[in-house]
């Protein structure tokens, strides 16, 4: 039976971007306000799942032509690399560093290595969740 899902598809197209932007916001805000890499990643996954419900798997793969397995690997390497990086500065494993910078456009900004680690978390969450969904959903 062919279902008519015009409304769902049209809404999904818009809502996807709203959720995605919100997830990015939540990811960056994480250090000071509720949010963080884990929730951000999950929200992004949720946005993609919404697209999946509205369209089918193949369309999603065309829209987002990433290899999510490799994304997982990159995320894991990033997290591990941030944690291991501290060894080179002769401080214990996993010591984070932070400092304030004056950046163009952003103005006075506080930058953390914790952010790098968090983006690793974000990538792993998105990567493996979508990998799981793709492999289970794609198995026909």
């Amino acid at each position: 039976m062919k279902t008519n899902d015009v409304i769902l598809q049209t809404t999904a197209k818009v809502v996807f971007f709203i959720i995605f932007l919100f997830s990015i916001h939540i990811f960056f805000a994480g250090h000071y306000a509720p949010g963080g890499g884990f929730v951000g990643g999950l929200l992004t996954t949720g946005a993609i799942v919404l697209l999946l419900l509205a369209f089918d798997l193949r369309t999603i793969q065309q829209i987002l032509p990433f290899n999510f397995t490799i994304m997982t690997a990159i995320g894991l390497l990033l997290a591990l690399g941030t944690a291991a990086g501290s060894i080179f500065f002769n401080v214990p494993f996993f010591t984070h560093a932070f400092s304030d910078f004056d950046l163009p456009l952003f103005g006075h900004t506080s930058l953390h290595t914790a952010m790098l680690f968090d983006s690793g978390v974000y990538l792993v969450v998105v990567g493996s969740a979508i990998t799981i969904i793709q492999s289970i959903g794609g198995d026909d």
Partner: protein
Amino acid sequence: MEFVLFIFLPVIFAILVPFAYKKIKGIHTGWFVLLVPLVLFSYYVSFLPLVMDGGHAISEMKWIPSLGIAFTSYIDGLSLLFTLLITGIGSLVVLYSVFYMDREKEDLGSFYVYLLIFMTAMLGVVQSDNTMTLYLFWELTSISSFLLIGFWYTKDKSRFGALKSMMITVFGGLMMLGAFILLSIMGETFSVRELIAQAPDLMNQPYFTLALVLLLLGAFTKSAQFPFYIWLPDAMEAPTPVSAYLHSATMVKAGIYLVARFTPIFGSASTWIWLVTGIGLLTLFWGSFFAVKQTDLKAILAFSTVSQLGLIMSLLGAGAISYHATAAIFGFATYAAIFHLINHAAFKGGLFMIAGIIDHETGTRDIRKLGGLMSVMPISFTVAAIGSLSMAGLPPFSGFLSKEMFLESMVALRHFELFNFDTWGIMFPIVAWVASVFTFTYSMYFVLKTFIGQKKFEQLPKQPHEAPIGMLIAPMILATIVILVFFIPNVIGKWIIKPAVMAIQPTLYASPSAVDIHVKAWHGFGAAGLWLTIGVVVFGTLLYLTIPKWQPFYRIQPEKLSLNNGYDALMRGSEKGLNRVSRLYMTGKIRTYLLYMFAFMSVTIIAILFIKDAFVLDMNSFTAITLYGSLNAIVLILSVGFVVFAKSRLAAIIALGGVGYSVALFFVIFKAPDLALTQLVIETVSVALFLLAFKHLPALSTHGETKRNKVVNLIVSLSVGVMVTLVALSSHSQKMIPSISQYYKDTVESEAAGGNIVNVILVDYRGFDTLFEIAVLAIAGIAVLGMIRLRVSRKEPNDENK
């Protein structure tokens, strides 16, 4: 320069080997690899003058300082001797392998990587002063040996032999680890040197004997002593350079090294002397006796290696007597052990290479098909004859000197009066002499049956001819050493053996020159060794000439009673038996496993709550009931009820989502926005995931469950619910440890420069947890991918045995 890093040179070089193998096609990879042992050998030779005066060198690299574990390279006479053996014989073996291993047909990349890993491991074993790193390297030798034996992994026998050797040597390694841990408990240090310094105190500790036995198990399994030797003949499936290197010259001598290294600690115990000497002699006899039974050239050499290792072992045991008796003859035994160890490495390495050459040039190693090769392979014959005569203990070869010292030492055991040796001591020289007769016999059997006798070339798979000169260089060098040592034994003694003897018995000698031993080939007609040697030659020749008459008697031993059969039965039995045990409770149904887990969890936790009287209820800490809260709770309970009674999966999954959302609402009510957010999104994603997986599941069925099953399920689920409720209530009602929240509040700004404690905990305070969690998440993702996307069709045949 921290020379401890040189231990790692081979393994670092191993990283480059696959590139050299892939990219540089014109040159045999072995030529590059040859550099490593050569460089190391010439570097370590520079330690000789230092060590000769009784000095030592230490270089340390911290690894896990908090546990006192470090890579410590400790170079004294004993470790330098082994180091030179490893790098020296290593160079020759790599040179030999360049001609033995075909560049086109063999996977040289893997071969040399394994070999270099082994080299690092072996250097680590003999140089480590720290018992924990010694253990690490010890097991690494077992693993690299496993890889090398199984190098031709398409052959069943290779895989079997590899597994057998690993089973036995890793078992011994674990026993040895036990000994090291006991020693560290007794001496409160991992350092061998410090343990040796407190040797007299260790003697009286309760664990002393246990540690001794465990350590010897490690040494005996590695050095192929009776009854653990059974792995060595099967290890002969390895390529011949490997047999020459690992299974005769170096790895199997790790056990000898261990015994020598720990002699200062355990040597004064009577158990040590009895076990090391007794098992050593038994192995010597057993190996030499069964060597004549073999028909495969390499098997003969394997049994002869077993027997020679027993000989060295027994000498080390006899050498330990010098802690009790001052007679110089017992110091002699240790000297003889080291001397014979060097000689054995030289002649046995050469013999293995010759066996490889014969295999290479004739296509067979079966001694029944071989014969009369002398005329076509004169150089090989000469080398083999030198090696065999040295092994048999004849002049003018180095084996004669050490063999005679061995016989003298064994004869001297008669005069030792402690520990019941006055009654049983006479057994030792007799067994030693009989074993020497058989040693002579199998040495002749090896060389004469192959090279002399009838020519049977038509039976050979290949037309035999002399090996290429490159292949002969390494065995020729070894044969030259065998002869050279006979004429300058005391130079070798002064440079290498005496420092090693001093390292084994540091309390007895102030400096290497205090080891007052002068080796002579001729002791006059009064010497017992001379007459024993003459007896060995006479009886050995007789036995050799009558081999066809008595060789069939080996068949009297029924196959069922052999040690090999015992090993097979043990392996098969444990596999079957354990399978049967696990089948008892492993039904293959997840619901059964969940039942076990939940039942166990609730029973233990409720029992502990009850026994420890830990249940406390403090109503004061609870918040007041609100309207939103109670509404939400009603929704929650309704959805749970719906999950339980739902008739279809779809309904159950959606109801489960409802449960999750209402829990998220609770988080909102209790002002935990982070948790609420996460819970909401997780719930959304997991419902979607469940729905995706849903269509792959079979229709909901009862799985043939009876009423009794259902009652059990009900009881278990109720008890889980009760358990969780009780734990939640009492953990909320009592704070036994002050909460850490205040610390987080105080430091989140100053230490982590953040504002959101929850996220700072995730990425900073408890970043380790997150790191491992995302690793688990990634593994789960890849596992699902592998399970579903990459799964191999079951109909596809297993091509392992192709």
